[in-house]
Structure formats: structure tokens, C-alpha cells
């Protein structure tokens, strides 16, 4: 009997030992999380070159330079003196050059004592120089395939060096977090596109149609959304930028706009500004026989929110009617400017015409989708814009 009790006891202890759980857990303090990833043209940085000179490297082609923003950095006392790119701001930017993103991530382990993990990657910035040469599908392959990186991370373009957008600015914030939060301004202005996360990007790339991504400009750590870059569907490469007004015009056409202002000059050449309250826009594809044309109908309600002409009274309906006409004309000019750019300069469609066609005329779409950009640039597009100014704010003069 005693013998059995010993045996049971041993068994219990043995089982308990296997029940400790979390076999492969790693303390978060021992890991470096990267929150931002910037992809640049493949030119090794100065530090990298110095390091390479002292040792043997590994076989690679310098196709791109990846910069990761790592947080949190241990806040030691000597961190202040270390005048790195991070400047002791609670984050650290590190660059590596090569031709495989995952290999680069593993290479960081050669330089830091703590391995980098991608669970908290918030933003990816790609420089337009790089994407002019490399297909975006290739560049994004790893981040879409990886099991750590969540597809909720957003993607931006940068016309300058992408890693510059991750530099410390005047604000205390971690640049990657700031960039991640910036698309939320979408509700304020049509110049900010709805944030494109990896899932959405995946679907855009997979559709083989041209699309645009928000561009961010940087100067001394300050960043600004400066329009958008167009990526051609069939090559996956960058073809050129759209300015802020063009991005706003695209938003007006697609109707994906929550807040916007239109500034114009009245008959005395004084500025006045229309604030959008409600927008209804519709792209109407017309197929007659084999001839395709688009009509865009835009109806908007809003208010006069700023008027510099002290001699005029915006509460008069006469004034409002004249103002409506002027704003309509301004928007029309914006739209036509955009269309000119898309159809003549870049010969691409990034403003949802193809999508609407595919919804309304799937059969016709099937015929033209493989050469849609070409077809679109030959397709006549007409606009009609209707503005209604419903009120003039809290000032009546």
C-alpha cells in the first residue's frame, strides 16, 4: 500500500512539472519591438559600411535599405551622450541593407543584444525612389506572410528618404505612432486618404489595378501628408505624385470624404470658404454599344464658414446663390485638373471609375479590366456639380 502511495506521489509531481505552461515564453523586456519600418533605396548607411569593413559580410544584393524604429530603448544614463539617430528619445532607428526583409530582421540580432519582434509594427513607409524600381508586391511579401506582423499596420509613401520620416521631431511622440495616428484626420479634410492597412493593400495589389497611397513629406523630423503617390497596377511600380488638391478631388469623386473645405475668391477677389456638411457623389458609367463614358454627379450641402469681403452680407440669398456658383466652378476646375493629370499625364485610373464599372457592368468590365488604365485614358468623363449653401454660421453680417 505504501509503495503505491509513493508511486502516486511521484506521478503527481511528475504531472505537475509538465503543467507549468508557457514553455516558450519570452520576457517582453528582453525583446525589442519595432513599431515603424522604412524601406529605402539600397544604399548602405555610413555605420553599416564601417561595420562591414571590419568583418566579412554575407552574400547579398543591395536592393533596399530597411530601417526599423525600435521601442522602448533602455533609458540608461549614458544614452544621452550616444548621439545616434534616436538621440535618446525613447526610440532607436537602425538600418540594414540587403535583399531579403526577414534576413535583415535576423541580421539585427548581430548588432543588438535583444531580438526584434514585429507584433507591434504600426506603420510601413516606402520611399518612392525604391518603389520606382521594385514591385510593391515583392516588397510587401514578407510583411504579408509573417505571422507576427499584423495586417492592421498602415502603409505610406515618402518622396524623400523614408527613414527621415522616422526621425525625432519637436513633439515628444514616437514618430511611428504619430504617423499611424495621422490618417485619422480623414474626418477633417479630404486631402487625407482613409488609412490603407496591409489587408487593404493586399487586395489592391491583388486586383492588378492602379491605386494610390498617401505620401508623407519630412523635414527635420517634422512630417506632413503631402498628397499621394500613384502605383501602376500591372507593374506594381510608382509612376508619379498627385498633389493635395488632387487627392481631395479624388475624394470628392469617390464620395469617401467626411470633412472638407473649399476656398475660393469672390467677385471682389476676396477669399471665402465653404465647409462641407453633406456629400452625395455618384459615378455613372454609360455603355452604349461598345462606347463607354462616365458621368460624375456631385451634390453637396454646406455652409459659408469664412468670408473676407466685409462689404457683402453672406446671409443674403443673393450672395449665397452667387457664392454657390463660384464654389461649383472651383470644384469643377479641381476635378478637371485631376482628370487631365490622370488621363493625359499618367494614364491611370485611381479614382474609382473602374470599380464602379465593375459593379454596374461586370460583363463589360471583364473585357477591359486587363488594359483598364489604357481604356480609361481614352474615355470621356463629364461632371455636374450642385452646391447648396444651407447656412452661414453664427455670424450674420
Amino acid at each position, binding site marked *: 500500500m505504501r509503495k503505491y502511495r509513493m508511486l502516486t506521489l511521484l506521478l503527481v509531481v511528475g504531472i505537475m512539472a509538465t503543467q507549468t505552461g508557457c514553455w516558450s515564453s519570452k520576457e517582453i523586456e528582453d525583446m525589442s519591438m519595432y513599431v515603424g519600418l522604412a524601406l529605402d533605396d539600397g544604399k548602405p548607411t555610413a555605420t553599416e559600411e564601417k561595420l562591414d569593413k571590419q568583418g566579412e559580410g554575407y552574400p547579398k544584393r543591395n536592393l533596399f535599405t530597411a530601417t526599423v524604429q525600435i521601442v522602448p530603448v533602455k533609458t540608461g544614463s549614458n544614452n544621452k551622450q550616444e548621439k545616434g539617430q534616436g538621440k535618446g528619445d525613447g526610440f532607436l532607428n537602425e538600418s540594414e541593407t540587403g535583399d531579403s526583409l526577414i534576413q535583415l530582421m535576423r541580421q539585427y540580432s548581430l548588432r543588438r543584444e535583444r531580438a526584434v519582434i514585429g507584433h507591434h509594427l504600426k506603420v510601413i513607409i516606402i520611399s518612392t525612389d525604391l518603389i520606382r524600381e521594385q514591385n510593391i508586391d515583392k516588397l510587401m511579401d514578407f510583411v504579408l506572410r509573417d*505571422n507576427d506582423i499584423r495586417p492592421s499596420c498602415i502603409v505610406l509613401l515618402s518622396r524623400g528618404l523614408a527613414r527621415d520620416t522616422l526621425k525625432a521631431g519637436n513633439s515628444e511622440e514616437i514618430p511611428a505612432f504619430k504617423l499611424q495616428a495621422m490618417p485619422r484626420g480623414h474626418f477633417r479634410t479630404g486631402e487625407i486618404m482613409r488609412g490603407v492597412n496591409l*489587408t487593404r493593400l493586399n487586395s489592391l495589389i491583388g486586383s492588378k489595378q492602379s491605386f494610390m497611397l498617401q505620401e508623407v513629406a519630412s523635414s527635420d523630423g517634422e512630417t506632413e501628408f503631402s498628397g499621394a503617390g500613384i502605383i501602376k497596377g500591372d507593374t506594381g511600380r510608382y509612376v508619379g505624385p498627385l498633389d493635395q488638391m488632387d487627392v481631395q478631388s479624388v475624394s470628392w469623386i469617390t464620395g469617401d470624404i467626411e470633412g472638407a473645405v473649399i476656398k475660393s475668391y469672390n467677385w471682389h477677389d476676396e477669399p471665402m470658404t465653404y465647409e462641407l456638411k453633406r456629400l452625395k457623389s455618384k459615378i455613372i458609367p454609360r455603355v452604349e454599344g461598345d462606347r463607354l463614358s462616365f458621368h460624375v454627379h456631385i451634390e453637396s450641402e454646406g455652409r459659408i464658414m469664412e468670408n473676407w469681403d466685409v462689404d457683402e452680407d453672406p446671409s443674403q440669398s443673393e450672395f449665397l446663390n452667387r457664392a454657390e456658383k463660384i464654389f461649383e466652378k472651383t470644384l469643377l476646375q479641381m476635378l478637371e485638373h485631376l482628370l487631365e493629370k490622370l488621363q493625359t499625364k499618367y494614364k491611370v485610373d485611381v479614382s474609382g471609375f473602374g470599380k464602379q464599372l465593375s459593379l454596374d457592368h461586370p460583363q463589360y468590365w471583364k473585357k477591359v479590366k486587363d488594359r483598364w488604365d489604357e481604356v480609361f485614358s481614352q474615355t470621356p468623363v463629364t461632371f455636374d456639380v450642385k452646391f447648396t449653401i444651407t447656412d452661414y454660421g453664427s455670424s450674420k453680417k
Partner: protein
Amino acid sequence: MFTRSDDKITTSQAVVLLTDSILGAGILTMPRDITEKVKTPDAWLSVLLGGIVALLVVWLMTKLSQQFPGKTIFEYARNIVGKIPGSVVSMLMVIYFMIIAGFEIRILAEVNVFYLLEKTPIWAVIIPFIWTAAYLASGGINCIARLFQIIFPVSILILLLSFLLSMRLFELDNLRPFLGEGLPPVLEGLKSSLLIFTGFEIVMVLVGHMQHPQKAVKAMLLGAGIPVILYVFATMIVVGGLSVTAVLRSTWPTLDLLRSFEITGLFFERFEFPFLVIWMMQMFCNFCSQFFVTSLGLSKTFGIKFPLVLFALMPILFIAALIPKTMNDLFALGQTIGYMSIILFALVTVPLSLIYLIRKKGLRKHA
């Protein structure tokens, strides 16, 4: 609470048992499987049609089983076609259930290791699940039913909550154009969508264990109807949230949908983790009921004691689960299971029903 020892389950328990036997790993890959065939946003229609066909089959199986109250397929197959052919039929069913069990536990382990427990050896995930399932199954169908009753509301709630939260990504345009290319792609998708409801063959065992077999038709149709509705919803929400192209480019589309947003402020910022953890219980349920039926079938066919079969099956299941080497093997196995389900229907359900009908009529004539 009182303990039952008569191996009977109530009507609501039967509903839950059937639902849990169908609902499992399928939901993780199903939207892609169907969309690959359909190639238009109408995949959900294929799922719906496939579901209706599955419900008809369930109805037929229930009707057949009702003719033999208190008996499972493993017993009444012999009554209909004789001892040896009956045993062959039973063995076919047993092999089928065993493959599903192995498949289910392997998918569970694969997802677990890929997303949650990287670097944990796969055996360390599979073995505890097999042990727990064996312990549960050794208590008989009643224990299983009661555990399922606890897990069912939790996992359904989490599933619906996940769907609800994913609505922020949902775009109706992703599901349009509706029938843009007509019905042919939808029918093409039927090839895949008929396969996703596998596991419902368990009906032919459940009805025999029901306390009120006269309510079986309603219970079984409800039990199979819940997964049909959930699968249709899942397809709509995943395709609507990701778009057809993104679904086609994703290995685990349902998880990718949940990974595409973060909710700051909610208790869970990243919803794929609670979903996976809870859904693992659902996959466990699925595994457990297939495991139970496999053992039951073997024990009834060969007259071996049930616990003995149960424990002897543990290592076999473990090895079976590890046979597929790559992910592609595993997905191919999933397909094969679907085809087996159709073959079983053609080789077991239909002949048994026909022979039964003929013999019944024959008996009447002679009487």
C-alpha cells in the same frame, strides 16, 4: 445534479452535439476554399446552397435512423444488410470519423503553433488534447453532451462578437456585383461548399442515443442548420471585409480579417487571440465527438469493451494526425475528407435507405 448512466441525451443536447460536430476548423479556411472555385463575391450563395443539400442529407439520415429507435448505424446496418456487409459499412464510417478527428486536431495544432505558441513542439499541443478528449469520452455520450452545452454558448458568442467587430471593415461593394457572372460560378463553388459540412454523418449515431427519438428530425435539422447559417455569415463577412482578391491571397482569411483591426480601449485590443483561444475549444469539441464515435463504432462492430478501444486509439490518432507533412498535404486531406463524405453518402446512406424501403415493402406484401 443527478448523473445519468443510461447513455441518453436530451433533445437540446442532441442539437448542440450535432452543431459542435460540424463547426470546427472549417471556418478558418472555408471563405478561401469556396472563393477559389467561385472567383466572384457570390461565394456565400454557394455555401447556402451547399448547406441546403447537407440539410436534405441530414434529414434522410435522421429518417433512416428513426426506424431503429435506440440503435446506432453500427447496429442497424447489420439489421438491414446482414452481419458482414453491415460490419463493412460500420468500418467505412469508423475510418471516416477517425480521419476527421486526426485532421481536426492537426489543424488545431498548426494554427496554434503558427499564431500563438511559436516554437512549442507540435506533439506538446496534440497530446494533451487527445488525453483530455479520451478522458471526456470515457464518460460516455452524456458527459460529452454536457461539456458541449457549456462550451457552445461561449464559442458562438465569441464568434458572433468577432463578426460584429469586423463589421468596421465590411464594405458592401466587396460583395457586389451580385451574380455578376450569373449562376455558373456559384454552381462551380458547390463542389467545394458541399465538402465543408463534413462530420454531420454523426447524425446516424446521435439519433440512437436520443431520449425522445420522435423529436429527432427537428433537432437534427436545427443542429445542422446552425452551422449552415454561421458559415454563410462567415463567408459574407470575411469576403465583405477583405474583398475577393485579398481572400484569395490569404492562407487563413478569417484570422486575417480579425488581424486587420485593433480596438483600443476594449479589453482585448487584438481580437484574433481571444477568438483563437475560444475557437480552439470548439475544435476540441469537434475532435472529441469524432473521437468518441470512432471508438464507439469499433467497440460495437468488434464487440470490444469501449474503454479499451478508446485508449488503444489514442496513439493511433496521434500518429494519424502527424501524417500530413506540409500545409498543402493538410489542405488536400481536408478536400479528401469532403469527397469521402460524398462517397459515404453514396455507399452507405442511400443503399441502406433503399434496401430498408424494399425490405419493408416486401414484408408488407408477404404479410
